[in-house]
């Protein structure tokens, strides 16, 4: 399951969400991420969802231990956020995004 979630081809924020199967945590993480991005990064992001159970070698190449893990690939430097992304504040801090007020 490699899901591309849309937006411009050259997005400012390139995000990758690593999950392992359709677990409650991964579904929650995806939903949370989608909501946060729509709120704060509308039109500037691209999300790629990678299910490690399918091509397992990606876990090694991406240096992934925990799932779900959200990786900010762009802008540099890379960041990793572990967990189901339920805490919006910490996700924003982790991605280094200025929250859009009142959004």
């Amino acid at each position, binding site marked *: 399951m490699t899901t591309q979630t849309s937006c411009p081809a050259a997005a400012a924020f390139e995000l990758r969400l690593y999950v392992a199967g359709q677990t409650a*945590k991964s579904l*929650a993480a995806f939903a949370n991420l989608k909501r946060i991005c729509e709120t704060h990064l509308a039109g500037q992001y691209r999300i790629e969802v990678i299910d*490690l159970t399918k091509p397992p070698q990606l876990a090694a190449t991406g240096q992934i*231990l*925990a799932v779900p*893990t959200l990786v900010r690939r762009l802008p540099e430097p890379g960041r990793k956020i*572990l*967990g189901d992304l339920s805490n919006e504040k*910490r996700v924003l801090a*982790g991605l280094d995004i200025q929250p859009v007020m009142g959004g």
Partner: protein
Amino acid sequence: MTKRSSNGETIGQQELSKRPPALFKAPTGIQGLDEITGGGLPAGRPTLICGSAGCGKTMLAMEFLVRGATQFGEPGVFMMFEENAADLTANVRSLGFDLDKLAQQKMILLDYVHIERSEIEETGEYDLEGLFIRLGHAIDSIGAKRVVLDTVEALFAGLPNHAILRAELRRLFRWLKDRGITAVITGEKGESTITRYGLEEYVADCVIILDQRISEQICTRRLRVVKYRGTAHGTNEYPFLIGERGFSVLPITSLQLDHKASVARVPTGIERLDEMLGGQGVFRGSSVLVSGSSGTGKSSIGAKFVDAACSRGEKALLFAYEESSAQIVRNMRSIGIDLEPWLKKGLLQIHASRPTLHGLEQHLVMMHDAVRSFRPAVVVADPISNLTFERREPEVKPTLMRLTDFLKQQQITTLFTSLNSGGGATLEDSQMGVSSLMDTWLLLRNVEFNGERNRTIYVLKSRGMAHSNQVREFVMSDEGVDLVDVYAGDDRVLTGTARVAQEAHERAADEVRQQDHRRKLLHLAGKRKAIEAQIAALQVEAESEAAEVNFAIAQETLLEKTALQNSKAMAHLRGGAAGSNGQAKG
């Protein structure tokens, strides 16, 4: 910690009864460790190896994997959390392990798990399924039977949520067990616990502690099997060494005294010494102690022993703790022992090192290593007292005992020399209780007398053979070493020039006596001649006297006759005038 789950034990017993023990344990191939653990680490279960930084955890884990791959055909995954693959490959290359090649052969897979705390943010629930998938994939891709997680505790520094981590580690170890993987997990030593993060709680099958201690500026590494569920194991601390050929633990190969006793004899290389030892030398596989104060010729006996072995075409190993290899060769040549050809032929190896280079145990581990790889028939250590010098006695004996036991089991004849310190201590005291481990004890002594020192040798003990009780003089010359009978007459024992002088003295006395005899005989002959001459003279005198007497008698007779005739004539002339009788008228 020592509590055993009944579950684990029954499984162990079932497996034991079901399969041969070799399958139940995964041999490490590491020298000594398999002996201590009775065959290796628990197969299909995780083992925890912990110790402080730099004590060799990674090396042990790596060797377990490499030997598994090369010797036992079990591929392995090395998952590292601290070092990257390139560094590790470089590090273990010094031990002769070619990880690149093994990786190409799909026998070893290195996976570096990189966690950068500063890059990581946590929010909400997560698990370590990524690690499981990653490890599972690595295992499947080469069909691994062995896994090393080198230091999994690094995760505690990388992942802030320890509650999740602990739960996941517990799951990981169970998961490895379910898959039948023999795993080695390394961990840092903790302050009060075995490991800093209490990994021992999760890995309960086998725990090995590595330790390094510094005593009198000498560092010794030690290994201890803290627990090993469901099997007997050695519980002591065993010194180990990371040497040129990897890890080696000094094992106790003989908890029981079960080595064979050979009746074959090994000549010492000194004929007269063999004579003292029942005529044939020492038993093969026995241990000989040659002790004496400095300069008594201990090394020479050692060198001769080595030389004799090489002459028989046997391999000999000489551990020298006082002289370098070149120095030994030079010095021994001066007493007619040429070791160089043997070195060139590869029959002789000299390992020269300073005793202070390592601790006693390390030296013994090195000796083990050298013996195992060279497989000599004869080993000489010159002198062991240097190893034991100024060390606490209690540790000396057990370690030497291990060494002698090991050598005996290999049926290697061993000669140790030992320096007696000073003259004050008694003989037995100076041997650190080592002598009881030895089968034959030769004592060399300097005898100072008459302005010179001479070497004497005698057999203090020699188990299982008739041996001489005589003191012999030990002579070194440029023709080699030899034994000479001492002068033992006249209620004293003399050696050296005193012996020679005494012998000369006796010869001279003998000469004088003989001359005296001759003189006396001559004198007697002379006297006899004189007496005979006297006798002759007396006879002559007697004869002449007799002749004179005869003459006198004859003269007197003549006179008497003449007188008678005269008187007759007178009477005739007077004619009877006086007419005395008819005659005149007649």
